[in-house]
């Protein structure tokens, strides 16, 4: 497992530790080799290799399996969390705390004793058609309402962004894809530092808001094509239609995803180059 893959899992481990109220003084991480662990200093993370708690040992602490293999033959006084990798709890082994399986594979022998056991099923559940339609209707309603409010109260803003989308599509797409890709990677790396995790979350929310703003502008533009006189109403209906279009595109493999990406990149770029619609974009004036 490479550092790039292991770091997000370590971030999750730290978040789980924080959430559980445990403040470990020491956390050991194992990446490779075979280890027999008779004691645990507060927390042990298995990221690779094999860790065994032998039958004769009684260890106290939190055990996290994020890669590699862990085997418990003896007693563990604490909780075990499996995020990835493999855990085997042998016959006669005992875990006094909770065994949580979030990912990876866990095998508990019939003769083993576990305080409590929970399994988080992260397999996405297929929504029923009614649920899908309901969620889509909710999105249409929310985005449509926002577009209506925007068009009624600040009609110049979507008009300016819309002008960049329609007249400077390529520039908007370039700026949007570049800013989007760079920001996304930057935010992920900021999250890795843990210290900047809140900034990263704020950044993601800001980015998401800009994309939603772009959706509203698409709604505004679509609304202009509709035979509805009231600007706010046409923008609301247009935004609703746009949400449906995005949903339909999402169901078309590859081409649909590419079209979605293109629309989002253009919208994001248009929002950025017009300073959220506050200034009309004018390309550089080149003589000749």
């Amino acid at each position, binding site marked *: *497992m*490479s*550092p*790039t893959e*292991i*770091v997000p899992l370590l971030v999750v481990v730290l978040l789980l530790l924080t959430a559980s109220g445990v403040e470990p003084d020491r956390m050991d*991480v*194992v*990446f*490779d*080799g075979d280890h027999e662990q008779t004691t645990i200093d507060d927390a042990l993370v298995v*990221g*690779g*290799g094999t860790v065994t708690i032998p039958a004769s040992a009684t260890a106290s602490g939190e055990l996290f399996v994020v890669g590699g293999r862990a085997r418990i033959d003896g007693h563990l006084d604490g909780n075990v969390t499996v995020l990835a990798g493999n855990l085997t709890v042998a016959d006669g082994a005992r875990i006094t705390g909770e065994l949580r399986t979030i990912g990876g594979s866990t095998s508990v022998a019939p003769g083993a004793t576990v305080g409590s056991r929970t399994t988080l099923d992260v397999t996405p559940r297929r929504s029923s058609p009614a649920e899908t339609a309901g969620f889509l209707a909710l999105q249409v309603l929310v985005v449509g309402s926002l577009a209506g409010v925007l068009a009624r109260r600040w009609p110049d803003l979507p008009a300016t962004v819309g002008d960049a989308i329609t007249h*400077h599509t*390529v*520039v908007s797409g*370039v*700026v949007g*894809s*570049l800013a989007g890709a*760079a920001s996304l*990677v*930057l935010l992920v*790396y900021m999250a*890795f530092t843990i210290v900047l995790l809140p900034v990263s979350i704020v950044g993601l929310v800001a980015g998401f808001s800009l994309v939603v703003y772009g959706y509203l502008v698409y709604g505004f533009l679509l609304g202009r094509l509709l035979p509805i006189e009231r600007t706010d109403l046409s923008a609301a209906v247009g935004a609703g239609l746009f949400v449906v279009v995005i949903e339909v595109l999402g169901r078309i493999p590859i081409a649909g995803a590419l079209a979605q990406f293109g629309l989002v990149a253009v919208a994001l770029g248009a929002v950025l180059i017009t300073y959220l619609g506050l200034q009309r974009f004018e*390309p*550089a004036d*080149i*003589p*000749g």
Partner: protein
Amino acid sequence: MRLVTAIREREWPLVLGAALFVSLLTAGYYYNITFVQLGLIDLGTRLVGMSSSTVSLWMGALALLTFLTAVVVGVTMDRRGWSRDLRTKFRLLTLVVTVQFVLTAVAPAIRTVPAFGAWIVGCSLALGLGFPVSFSLAIDFVPVPDRGYVAAAITALTYFGANALPLAWSIDVFSALLTPAMVPGVLVLAVLSSGRIERVETLVDEWATQHERFGRGRFCDDGPVTVRTLAFWSPVALLFGVFFIDSLGFLRIIETPALVLSSWQSPDFGTRLAIAVVHAVGAGMAGVLYVNFDRNGLFLWIFALFGFTYVLYTSDLRVAAFFPGAASDPSILNPLFYSLTVSFYTTLNFALWPDLSTAETIGTHAAIGVGMAGWLATFLSTAVALSLEHADVGLLTHLNLVNALALLLLVALAVGLYSRRVYALARGDTA
């Protein structure tokens, strides 16, 4: 785009001229980044048997001599009127490509240090003569509004070819590929400069007057740009910084097998193709940004991307240092962002000098601009890289230094632009 209109209206001389310019510059740049820069390392270390440090010193000497030659050539071109004379430029280019053809063919036979030195001097003279002449062709062949897109096309084609073609970085391979590939170039240039074929002469006559219709460069409208103005030296300084950062970092990256074998020299064609595609896409993006925004915006993007790229590299190294037990497959993301950045500044470099020049100044401006920003920066960064190596500076510290430099230039440029705006507002300029 003027060239699109030209295709639609069947103005074939204009279209052919732009195509010729793209072909010449693409071939020239490909030759430079593969044969001269990468092949030279292999030639010096493997065939001549020198240490990599000694070869780096020779590379520095090549850069310095190329720069000096270019300045002499560029100034001479402007003073003698060669910059405005397309036929003279064709003749000079024919000479350059012929010399380079010979140098390319004989390179694999070099085995001694004196022969290597002579080869370096030959390369420097050819390059020093070649790049002011070839860059100056932009004023003859590329309409001002299209320079960003044409620069993007050259960058995209060059880097796509350099990365997608699965060539070993070996002088024998480069020589075997480039020697026959240069023959058509020599022939075309010989025909163009011969003055003996009537139809070709008609075409050259048409091309020779195009620069008068195209007019001066895009950035010359706010006032004269000369070697005595800040308008010329500020982009020179910025591009010098860009090349310096790139060269200082890349010299260390290519000496680190784990980094180079997982990217530019990866045995996996998919990885190399991904880098090639990102180079091409990055060049296209840079072309669009160059045409639609002020050049300072592009400089800001370049420094930001360099800073960002080195943050990625150094983060990976820090994580690997923190968790030494973890198997560390270097991330493909890092070379992809690196490639994007390199395409950005290469595009800018191809478009900027003609746009800062007139037909009377292009020789000097291209020579000083490309020479200082490209060759002198390479020379100095090589010296710095060598001194860091002698001081046993580790990879992380080295890349961290490059990262700091990129971020410093980013902040300095942003603050400089903002301060200039404040100064203008304070003087009552509301535009």
